[in-house]
């Protein structure tokens, strides 16, 4: 009887030991899985960031060489890093008319803007000097002041698709802005930049 009870206790000990080993094993496995998934999530975010950056660069390159914006002159090669402002003013409306069927495939979820930074004032200033009975008068017509910004394309990623807020990374590129509708006899060049932001 004594011997039987001793054996029973040993058996119980064995079972407890096995359960403890299994418990620790599964705890370790769970820890491992949690670590793995956390790492995967982190790696995924990193990859998404890299993808967004690559897409931003790709989109900027595409924008810089868009025939819709390029400064051309007959059959000559287009001017490098130059935007024709007369075409630029038409582009947003054209893109919006064909956004889903065409331009979305080219740019995806992104925002493309062109900003003119120089000249800020003389760009559209006309100074007339008239001499009325010996008095000199100055007539200034200031059509635009400060920075001018044209949003060429803007398609944010729909928020309801994901619970997390989308990321937004942008790249900039300096360009010259050619506007032949100013001045008349001389071609006017300004200076600005393209801002290309992509929604990640």
């Amino acid at each position, binding site marked *: 009887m004594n011997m039987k009870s001793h054996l029973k206790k040993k058996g119980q000990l064995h079972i407890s030991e096995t359960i403890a080993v299994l418990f620790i094993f599964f705890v370790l496995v769970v820890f491992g899985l949690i670590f793995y998934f956390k790492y995967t999530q982190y790696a995924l975010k990193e990859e998404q960031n890299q993808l967004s950056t690559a897409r931003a660069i790709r989109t900027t390159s595409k924008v810089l060489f868009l025939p*819709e914006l390029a400064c*051309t002159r007959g059959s000559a*090669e287009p001017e490098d890093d130059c935007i024709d402002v007369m075409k630029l003013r038409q582009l947003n409306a*054209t893109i919006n008319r064909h956004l889903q069927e065409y331009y979305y495939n080219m740019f995806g979820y992104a925002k493309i803007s062109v900003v003119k930074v120089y000249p800020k004032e003389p760009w559209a200033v006309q100074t007339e000097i008239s001499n009325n009975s010996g008095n000199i008068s100055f007539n200034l017509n200031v059509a635009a002041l400060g920075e001018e910004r044209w949003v060429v394309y803007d398609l944010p990623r729909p928020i309801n698709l994901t619970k997390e807020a989308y990321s937004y990374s942008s790249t900039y590129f300096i360009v010259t802005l050619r506007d032949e*509708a100013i001045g008349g006899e001389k071609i006017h060049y300004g200076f600005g930049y393209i801002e290309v932001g992509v929604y990640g």
Partner: protein
Amino acid sequence: MNFSKKAQVEVTFNWIYIAIAGAVILLFFAGIIVKQKIASEQTLDRDVMRIMENIFTAAQISENTKTVIDMGGLRDYVFYFNCEEGVSKYGLEGRSMPVEDQANPIFAPNKIQSSLLITWSVPYKLPFKVIDFLFITSSNTKYFLWGKTPLSQDFSRAISNVSSESKIKVDFNTAEIQDLSEINPGKNFQMRLIDFEGKLKTGDKLPTAVEEKIAYLPPGRVTAVSFHGAGASTSITYFVYENGWKEQNKKPLNVISLGGESDAALYAAIFSGDDSIYQCNMRKAFQRLSYLNEIYGGPELATKGIPGGKLGEIISFYKARPELLMTSECVNYLTEDPNQNVQAALQSHQNSANACLTLFTAGEIPTECTELVSTAVNLREANNNLAERGDCIPLY
């Protein structure tokens, strides 16, 4: 005695238990390894395709630039290219999801397996720059140039030109031949015969000696493109060699181009794997042309004759500045000249582009598209008048 048996059962049970548990644990980790392997292969495929996409984008936007890409470890993989319903697809055969491109025309053989990839970007103008065509080929795709025409001479000159950007001479693996018996594909992956004089016909056979030399090439790797006519009436036919030349397209495809040197539409025909790649990518160019027409002339010029876009802005500019010396002459070239004014020329060009796109079907380039050539010539003339004779703001 009873106890001894019990111990034996316990020991056996323990071993079975350990074996099962061990197997389960082993399977668990083996599963993870397999999954991880598949995932990393997929990641690698995605990375490869992403890099290729970046390379192709960069190659395409750099106008008139030839680039050689070292494929390194990817030399054993087969890249495939196709274009259906206006969407180009390219990727690694039997591997990941392909890259899809609905906007940029990519003209390439159906398959490429090589250690060196060659890309070349040429602008397509009708008459203004519409888009850059990207040609992709490989160092082991052999091109036999058969016949002497202005196009063959222009093409030979163009491929041997040193790229202005990279300053590297690119070897396109071409050979000029006078007779079909000179064909020797060597150990190349595939060969393309370019028949500049339009001599090939369905059923024609290569000389027996040549057939023996090409015997090692699998079906579909011996192809030809044949040019008929010249200038605006040029058309092309694609052939594949299957115990004799066999036409791939039912009707000859019209080439829509203004001619002259570096004719992107004709070069595109040379690099396209088959008629569907050529025709599908040309459609992309016409689509883009219609959008550019809107930038230049506005959306209502074609339908209602109301100038908008850049043209509208130029007209408004001159109407608002009557004091400028050239205003009357510029307005004349823009809207009034009965022989050739920009507004009328652009309107015709828009109408032709719209008609071409409406009637575009898989398998042929409609004859309506050929009208684009004459309307583009008229627009070019009107724009030249504006810029050179009138010293006015040109349309493009």
